[in-house]
């Protein structure tokens, strides 16, 4: 996004961006104005829309490829791929499996790496803080934007997967990993839980991106660093020699959403993942605050 666009975006939300005083009546009446402006700006950006479209293309591509070749891969390929021809709803699961290692971290890395560094590079960070908005508040709003994008990205993949699967393949009761089948209500419930799980899995990673974004005024640097970290974490997770380290890697439970497809649902990885992500959010959120609060804002 160019500087001009940023200025235009800022002009669109004059209330939020140029609040005269935090204690003014207007500020108190609209406590979420900054959040609303941030979310509006994030989801109206061409780049965000393009990334969501790219994510939506993954399930479409999978479904069309399976439909055209009419082959389930014969046990090879990502998990659930073989089930798609029997039941189109599995497109959503396959798409999640495919997106989690690279596409979701890549897009979230772009969004979280851009949070502070992007404003700094546009020269808008100064004005945001002069507004005046507290630095903590700005950081929280930026992180809220990251969370919103993580949710939107996951929901996009799942929803598009379900829709395209239902369009191209027969739909029926879902066979769980345990061999039991669940009907529509069970499917909707479990899919919602799964989207929540995947979005939650990305929170720690998002916090790392936020911290990286406070370190530099070059957004590309923060984005690249964050995405590289996601890849490194997954490589470390694949090395059996480092198994003592695995439970501490933020990517360790990323594929744990499979536990939601068992009967009864195994909640262990949900709980462990939540604790791990909370740990990462606290540590890197703290670091991001410390860095951002002590930083000289020069742009």
């Amino acid at each position, binding site marked *: 996004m160019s500087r001009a666009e940023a200025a235009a975006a800022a002009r669109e939300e004059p209330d939020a961006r140029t609040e005269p005083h935090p204690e003014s009546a207007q500020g108190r009446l609209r406590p979420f104005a900054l959040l609303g402006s941030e979310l509006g700006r994030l989801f109206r950006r061409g780049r965000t829309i393009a990334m969501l479209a790219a994510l939506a293309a993954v399930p479409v591509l999978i479904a069309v490829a399976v439909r055209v070749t009419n082959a389930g891969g014969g*046990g090879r390929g990502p998990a659930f791929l073989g089930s798609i021809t029997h039941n189109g709803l599995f497109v959503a699961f396959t798409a999640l499996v495919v997106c989690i290692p690279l596409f979701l971290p890549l897009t979230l890395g772009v969004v979280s790496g851009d949070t502070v560094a992007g404003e700094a590079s546009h020269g808008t960070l100064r004005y945001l803080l002069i507004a005046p908005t507290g630095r903590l508040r700005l950081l929280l709003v930026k992180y809220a934007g990251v969370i919103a994008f993580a949710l939107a990205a996951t929901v996009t993949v799942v929803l598009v997967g379900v829709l395209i699967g239902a369009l191209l393949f027969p739909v*029926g009761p879902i*066979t769980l990993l345990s*061999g039991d089948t669940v009907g529509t209500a069970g499917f909707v419930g479990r899919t919602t839980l799964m989207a929540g799980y995947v979005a939650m899995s990305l929170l720690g990673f998002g916090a790392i991106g936020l911290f990286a974004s406070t370190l530099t005024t070059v957004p590309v640097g923060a984005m690249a660093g964050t995405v590289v970290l996601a890849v490194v974490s997954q490589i470390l997770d694949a090395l059996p020699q480092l198994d003592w380290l695995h439970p501490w890697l933020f990517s360790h439970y990323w594929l744990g959403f499979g536990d939601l497809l068992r009967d009864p649902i195994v909640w262990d990885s949900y709980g462990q993942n939540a604790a791990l992500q909370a*740990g990462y959010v606290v540590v890197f959120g703290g670091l991001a*605050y410390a860095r951002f609060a002590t930083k000289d804002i020069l742009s």
Partner: protein
Amino acid sequence: MKRLLKWLPALVAPVVVVGAMAAPAFAGARTAESAKSGTPSASAVLALVAKSGTAHYSGTLRQTSDLGLPDLSSLQTGSGAGSADGTAGILDLLTAPHTAKVYVDGPRKQRVQVLDSLAERDVIRNGRQVWVWDSKKNTALHVTSPTTSAARADAPTTTPQDLAGRLLSEAKNDTTFRVTKGSVAGRSVFTLTATPKPAGTLVSKAIVSVDTKTGVPLRVELDARGQATPAASVSFSSIDFRRPAAKNFTFTPPKGAKVTTKRLSTPGANTPNTSTPGTVQQSPDNRRPGSFEGPSVIGSGWTSILAVPAGSSGSAFGGLGELTADQSHLVNELTQKVSGGRGLQTSVFSLLLTDDGRVYAGAVPLSALESAAR
């Protein structure tokens, strides 16, 4: 100063996180200490285990092994640890860590649910019905055993105490036993440690931790000589002694799954071993007809060696020449060349496959197997 203060949250956060992680461990240590009082004898502990057959519980089981073997999950098709057939399935169980859910409701209803990444293997026993399910292969094996009550009637009517006593008096010749108190999965346990006396075995210790109230073994560990980490351990990370819901023990194969049905006809035949799904799937056509010379045991106690003659009915192995390309690749990967065959040396046991099809195995060094084979 003010700048420093702003770094405070960043410094405090890791401390808080690590503290939160470590707190349960400290709490566990305290309960373990408070349980210091009289410890029962080794035979009393074993009798406690023998009585636990009617217990009902559900829990999470973690299995790790460090046999000095490479983790072979990467050798199999990329995405799939645990998807392979027969031998490779067992290898996967031996070399990679696993988590399983266990549901037990008395002696007739059991379920082991192996939680693989985005896949699952199940063994469900409900009375005479046994189901083995593999989600990755989309196959279900249905085994119906003949009336289990007949098999039960054959069981000797000795009390658990008698049995434990007899077992121990036999083992006492070459084993020292020690009972301590501890805690596993938040339960207080009696830990029975068996230390072999003979120097010829690879096993340095076998440890069983038994729940003090119910007698359910909560942790089993096998230690190898000269190795700090356990060679193999199976341990409950959490356990719940309420009766598991009945629907955990029912299984209906999903539409589209390949179902194999097997009926065990011989009266009194044992139901398949529920702990290792791999062994259940062994197909009978691997067996060779002909000589019925069974396996024999050389020596006694910890240093005993199991010898399976070539082509016997108990052996699925028909000499190194008869392996398929895949199998021999796996065998070559695992074993080393020794005189007269190929040997596998792990930290707690050795296996020798001779060129003429004999198999030797034991908890002894490979050299002892070689001299037994000569």
